[in-house]
């Protein structure tokens, strides 16, 4: 069974701090996606990483896919209250898009 472990599960930081969220698995994924979800809404795709070692940047967010395509990280620089939300990673094994989801990291950025 493929599993994705996210850490930390909860994170509460002050505005302006940096943070990193990790997503780890013993399985190889053809791609890995990061989503952000706000209360009462569905997840919204932030980025898809496909190539081992790939780094993608989205403003203050930096996403990295591990060389072996088993793990990924999300780094946020100078966090802002608007970054508050649930961050989810999801791995695509290539099997008809049956995504394997992590449990999420609940981030609270305090002003």
């Amino acid at each position: 069974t493929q599993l994705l472990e996210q850490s930390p599960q909860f994170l509460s930081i002050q505005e302006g701090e940096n943070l990193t969220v990790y997503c780890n698995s013993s399985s190889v994924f053809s791609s890995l996606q990061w989503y952000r979800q706000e209360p009462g809404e569905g997840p919204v795709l932030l980025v898809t990483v496909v190539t081992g070692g790939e780094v993608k940047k989205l403003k203050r967010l930096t996403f990295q896919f591990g060389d072996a395509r088993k793990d990924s990280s999300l780094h946020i620089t100078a966090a802002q209250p608007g970054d508050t939300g649930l961050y989810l990673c999801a791995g695509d094994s290539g099997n008809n898009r049956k995504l394997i989801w992590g449990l999420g990291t609940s981030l609270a950025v305090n002003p």
Partner: protein
Amino acid sequence: GAGVSQTPSNKVTEKGKYVELRCDPISGHTALYWYRQSLGQGPEFLIYFQGTGAADDSGLPNDRFFAVRPEGSVSTLKIQRTERGDSAVYLCASSLTGGLNTEAFFGQGTRLTVV
């Protein structure tokens, strides 16, 4: 519409009753997915449609759960003899082709509460 629409947004039902949850995908999207999400958890895959057919229904927890997509657009998730453990947010997503690395767009979900 511009996005994936799910109705109702909230549904409260009594244990043992039958419920239907509706999903209107983005127009032209051939792939449609149903997920279930419990509080503080990531989504759990239920079923995937490619067109009118269920390409993968391995996530349906038992035979009380059934989903249809008769015309390849709107889908309905049906739950018979509801149990309190069925309470969750049911998410629907659609993507253009369902192929590798195509983006899936999620609806806002239907919050089902079984009392």
